[in-house]
């Protein structure tokens, strides 16, 4: 028996208007989708060129989920995006060149080479840097929501996790505490149907992850993670509900991880047909078509955006590549924060 609500797709422009998106916003969303994929595609190339140490992960197939949710956040909201959620950093306004510097381990990456991949965040953008251990950032997101609740602020925390990570105790403790205290937090499950090589039937035995919301006393929704507008609408609803004191929501964004777990993985274990089927539902293609059908999106506009993005990426990579590799300096001191660092607005 399915318990979670299944979100219907977004059909008309009218609906998006109701959801508070004008045409500008829609084009902005499109641009963010293109930019998100662009950053990861370029990253992948940089990796192949040997410019990125370690490994490299992309969120191909997850762009709409990430961009859709982040677009629904308000500036004062905070989040803990993961390794498939580049779109969140993009929407919140990370500068692409800093992202590339991060990938390449340069001093201008947000972690100045101390960590790699998307293990970063700009806290001035309301994001908290992820750790590898999944989903250890969920309790942290819940804690942010707890702070908002204690201070009676109308702010919301968003916590991301994968369907594989749903198996870990952290997921449970986080949702249980959030449910008991009706905290202003929204849980986003990036269900890309694989945890590395592990298929969903070996990860969980219920129909959908969203079904679990009821175990914690709040609502669950399953949304097509390739439909950026549907994701946006559901996220908006949940976020505003949380803001108004309605408690948490668990949103499951269903998509497919369109590449291997990381660059080294050819995903031999994923059935070809599965890739083919989901390729038809490419989030970017879908939204482009939607814009053409519903918002008279023109070739000129499309060309303009892709040009802008291409230039942005070229400049970003050039600038990032000019950033030097870090020299070890004050590494040991950097382990501990100094009192001065608490002299920030939100620590006052």
């Amino acid at each position, binding site marked *: 028996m399915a318990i979670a609500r299944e979100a219907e797709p977004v059909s008309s422009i009218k609906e998006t208007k109701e959801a508070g998106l004008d045409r500008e916003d829609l084009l902005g969303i499109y641009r963010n989708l293109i930019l998100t994929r662009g950053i990861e595609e370029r990253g992948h190339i940089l990796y192949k060129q040997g410019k990125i140490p370690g490994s490299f992960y992309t969120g191909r197939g997850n762009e709409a989920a990430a961009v859709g949710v982040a677009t629904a956040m308000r500036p004062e909201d905070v989040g803990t995006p993961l390794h498939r959620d580049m779109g969140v950093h993009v929407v919140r306004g990370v500068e692409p060149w800093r992202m590339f510097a991060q990938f390449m381990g340069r001093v201008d990456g947000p972690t100045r080479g101390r960590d790699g991949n998307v293990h970063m965040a700009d806290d001035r953008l309301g994001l908290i840097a992820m750790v590898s251990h999944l989903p250890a950032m969920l*309790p942290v997101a819940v*804690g942010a929501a707890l702070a908002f*609740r204690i201070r009676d602020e109308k702010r919301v925390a968003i916590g991301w996790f994968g369907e594989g990570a749903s198996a870990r105790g*952290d997921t449970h*403790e986080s949702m249980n505490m959030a449910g008991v205290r009706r905290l202003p937090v929204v849980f986003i499950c990036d269900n890309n149907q694989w945890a590395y090589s592990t298929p969903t039937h070996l990860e969980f035995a219920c129909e959908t992850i969203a079904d679990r919301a009821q175990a914690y006393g709040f609502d669950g929704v399953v949304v097509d993670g390739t439909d950026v507008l549907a994701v946006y609408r559901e996220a908006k609803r949940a976020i505003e509900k949380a803001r108004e004191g309605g408690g948490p929501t668990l949103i499951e964004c269903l998509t497919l991880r369109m590449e291997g777990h990381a660059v080294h993985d050819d995903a031999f274990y994923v059935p070809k047909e599965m890739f083919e089927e989901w390729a038809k539902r490419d989030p970017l293609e879908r939204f482009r078509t939607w814009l053409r059908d519903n918002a008279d999106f023109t070739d000129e506009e499309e060309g303009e955006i892709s040009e802008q993005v291409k230039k942005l990426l070229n400049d970003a990579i050039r600038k990032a590549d000019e950033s030097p590799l870090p020299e070890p300096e004050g590494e040991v001191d950097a382990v501990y*924060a100094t009192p001065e660092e608490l002299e920030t607005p939100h*620590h006052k």
Partner: protein
Amino acid sequence: MAVKTYLQAISDALRDEMRRDKRVFVIGEDVGVYGGAFKVTKDFQQEFGPWRVIDAPLSETAIVGGCTGAAIMGMRPVAEMQFADFISCAWDQLVTVAAKQHYRAGTPVPIVVRLPSGGGFSGGPFHSQNPESSFAHIPGLKIACPATPADAKGLLLSAIEDPNPVLYFEHKHLYRRIKDEVPDERYTIPFGEARIHREGDDVTLVTWGAMVYTADEAAKQLEGELSVEIIDLRTIAPWDRETVLESVAKTSKALVLHEDTQTAGFGAEIMATIMEEAFEDLDAPVKRVTAPDTPVPFAPPLEKWFLPQVEDVVAGLKDLAEY
């Protein structure tokens, strides 16, 4: 200046700080209505309400991780573990997230975790441990182990002010047994500054927590015979190398005493450091008196055997004297 128990000193310091600083809140199992398993937060909820004195579900990971998130949002969380032993359930949140967030991302994580620790009353293997050594190995964490009521207050306030995650070990055996004067005004005691508990010239004894009293008793028994300088480290991360090394330069002999088990315990780090920095000063190998490498046994005769006793310290000091 009022005389308070160790427990009262902690309780009052925390209450005063919550009155002074709205960002400070308490979260833990049974800390609200019940006032905490040891009543450290007794009546706090009446005064500060259910959102600053939070009765949490049985979820150490969510408690510590939740504090991390709240701290990043500008709060000053003080979590209570019902017993220090249960911090094992939040190990990952502490070592993976809280300890590493600043080095990686430059994000300060000002949280305090209060840990009622230690043995001496047949608590058995899971209500008597001193897990500080395991954490002392993790860069990014700070660790306080106060021995006196006055230090308990000053170190707790420093811990709350500190922009880093702090594990604050409060020894259960001292809670009501130890009474002493505590200054009324607000004050902090810096981390990494040891306290010379007792001056002496013949042997340096380095310890912390409840063992300070065991050491003191041993030193008293040897009065006249041997002059023991007792250094109460007060914090082990960071720890006061200078004070220890200065004392060893004076005495040329040292004994390290801790209630935690021996192998790879923090005592080994102190010995290694003394060897590295004061080898030439030493007239004898530094000695260790610690618990043996077993879980904390339940039955009184076994627990007595497990916990370092005054006789053990006296014997160790005599060995050193005679070396």
